[in-house]
């Protein structure tokens, strides 16, 4: 009867350890997957910079280039966003003002900036957006603009360090202005040669002009200015530290956004599940060991007289020990087998329960993030829109993505691998050995002469 109790308690402790082990494995795997999928880039933009409409004070090339010297930074991609008013260029925007006004009104009322439009008689020409970049050829268009990845449809890209008066233009703009590779247009009173045409799959992005960073800085009288930079970090594990270093270096001049940092906060519930399961795991293993030790002590003590009698009858210490070790091993093995099966059975529901309980504590932040930034998907994140795809997280893009991550956060697959089995086996073995040695120590010390004493 007592033995049954010991086995049951042991099984519960082992089941708990196993399920915690599985939960921990599953959650760490998930955390690693999520972290790995979020890229290794950090976006830097001037404080308060608001892409399409500008604003804030631009950063300088000197500031940004300094970031290259930070440890673990492999590259810094810079861009300068400028607007060409109709008076500054021969280019005509493909988007009629009225149409754009309606678009703004319906999709992102607050960010359009042209809310006075709405009557088609109002003559307002949409400026052309020019992005000076030192990383052409990498995909330029981020989720911020609702577009896909930039692809050259004809021609070629300019070199990163080019200072020529050349441009790669979006194909919508090219069609509207009947431009092709080799054509020229004027901007800032300068003749610009089209060297390539790109497509990014959205009318808005395909109305943009890409030019060498140095050229735009020169022509737009924005010498050494940068409106956005993307810092590429060598290793996913260094993103957080580089993020801190960049923030420290640039101080209040810039908004530093690493997807990692945001993801890290999204992952906080998972991390806390990991911590909880680690502690519970340790606790239940120790608990199991203590239970077995105490029961062995209790059993040996209770059978002290029996041990004395066996010794008086001529049993060797070894034969008595063997019997007790066999008993404690039987307990442990039974408990381990029952606990292992039960642990695997309950690991999946326990993991889900833990994950949903922890993420349940921060649902508003997640939801709010998605709602708040998802409202104006076309424009709010424009400033950092033209960044490589690996770091294509503008605010809204990030929001949408995180929405996606969050949905999959609870989709954690639990599985018991060989390592789990090995753990259970070794843990049971160690616990049994501990229990046995405690029993052994007590048994050896029992003096057979004690049995002659009446209690």
């Amino acid at each position: 009867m007592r033995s049954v109790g010991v086995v049951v308690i042991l099984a519960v402790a082992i089941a708990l350890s196993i399920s915690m082990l599985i939960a921990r494995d599953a959650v760490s795997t998930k955390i690693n997957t999520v972290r790995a999928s979020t890229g290794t880039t950090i976006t830097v933009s001037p404080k308060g910079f608001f892409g399409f409409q500008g604003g804030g004070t631009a950063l300088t090339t000197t500031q940004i280039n300094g970031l290259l010297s930070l440890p673990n930074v492999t590259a810094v991609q810079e861009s300068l966003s400028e607007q060409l008013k109709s008076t500054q260029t021969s280019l005509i925007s493909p988007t009629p003002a009225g149409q754009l006004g309606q678009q703004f009104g319906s999709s992102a009322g607050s960010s359009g900036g042209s809310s006075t439009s709405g009557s088609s008689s109002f003559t307002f020409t949409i400026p052309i957006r020019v992005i000076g970049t030192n990383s052409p050829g990498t995909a330029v268009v981020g989720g911020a603009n609702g577009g896909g990845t930039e692809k050259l449809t004809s021609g070629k890209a300019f070199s990163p360090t080019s200072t020529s008066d050349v441009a790669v233009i979006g194909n919508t703009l090219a069609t509207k202005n009947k431009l092709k590779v080799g054509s020229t247009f004027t901007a800032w009173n300068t003749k610009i040669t089209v060297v390539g045409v790109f497509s990014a799959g959205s009318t808005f992005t395909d109305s943009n002009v890409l030019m060498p960073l140095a050229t735009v800085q020169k022509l737009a009288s924005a010498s050494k200015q940068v409106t956005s930079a993307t810092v590429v970090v060598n290793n996913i594990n260094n993103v957080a530290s580089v993020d801190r270093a960049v923030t420290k270096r640039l101080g209040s001049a810039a908004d530093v956004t690493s997807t990692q940092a945001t993801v890290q906060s999204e992952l906080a519930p998972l991390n806390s599940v990991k911590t909880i399961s680690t502690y519970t795991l340790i606790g239940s293993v120790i608990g199991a060991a203590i239970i077995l030790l105490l029961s062995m002590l209790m059993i040996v003590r209770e059978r002290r007289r029996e041990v004395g009698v066996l010794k008086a009858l001529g049993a060797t210490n070894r034969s008595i020990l063997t019997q007790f070790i066999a008993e404690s091993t039987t307990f442990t093995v039974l408990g381990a087998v029952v606990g292992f099966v039960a642990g695997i059975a309950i690991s999946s529901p326990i993991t889900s329960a833990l994950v949903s309980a922890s993420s349940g504590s921060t649902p508003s932040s997640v939801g709010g993030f998605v709602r708040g930034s998802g409202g104006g998907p076309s424009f709010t994140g424009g400033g950092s829109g033209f960044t490589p795809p690996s770091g294509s997280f503008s605010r809204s893009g990030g929001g949408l993505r995180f929405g996606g991550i969050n949905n999959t956060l609870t989709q954690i697959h639990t599985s018991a691998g060989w390592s789990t089995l090995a753990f259970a086996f070794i843990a049971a073995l160690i616990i049994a050995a501990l229990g046995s040695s405690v029993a052994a120590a007590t048994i050896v010390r029992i003096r057979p002469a004690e049995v002659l004493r009446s209690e």
Partner: protein
Amino acid sequence: MLKVENLNKTFHTGAGDVHAVQNVTFSAADGEVVAIIGASGSGKSTLLSLLGLLDAPDRGSIDINGVQLANLDSAGRTKYRSTQVGFVFQQFNLIPNLTAKENVMLALEFARWPKEDRGQRAEEMLAMVGLDAGKADRRPAKLSGGEQQRVAIARAFAAEPQLILADEPTGSLDKSTGQKIVALLREAATKQKATVLVVTHDEKIAQQADRRLEIEDGVLKEIA
């Protein structure tokens, strides 16, 4: 033949030294039943534990059939306990989760009796002590005190030991059962030519023995 010479055992306790056994010298023949009487704390159990090698004397010698027990190594002492000595306790001390027969067989196992003979030997012993054949497969908890003590006697004599040490075997039994148990001990002693030492408080029981020894503060003397 048991020969004890100048045996001494002192316990060093916090309250001072207790000379539980002092210069004890006596001998007993095969088949002889010797009663040891004495007040509580006079050293009776201590003397038995020295004779049964449950404890080691400080000084003195125990010789059984020409073998000096002091010369035995650890394996020799274990062998001595399992083959040369049988214990009968006041509390019976049967193994609770073994049946009567298994308890007897356990002693045979420790004495390394041939495996195939143990069952039959155990049944013979239980029959000799008068346990109903139907009760051989009962556990101790389902036997009366007298029946348990019969099983204990069967267990003590099973491996044909030279020496039986009985520490108040009748202490937990009523008078008539106690007398039957002592009669049984004497019968078995005669039959197996074993020396039986019976510790008792009971003068009547002591008178059933061949000889009586009295122990007082660890000092043993013969009662005429």
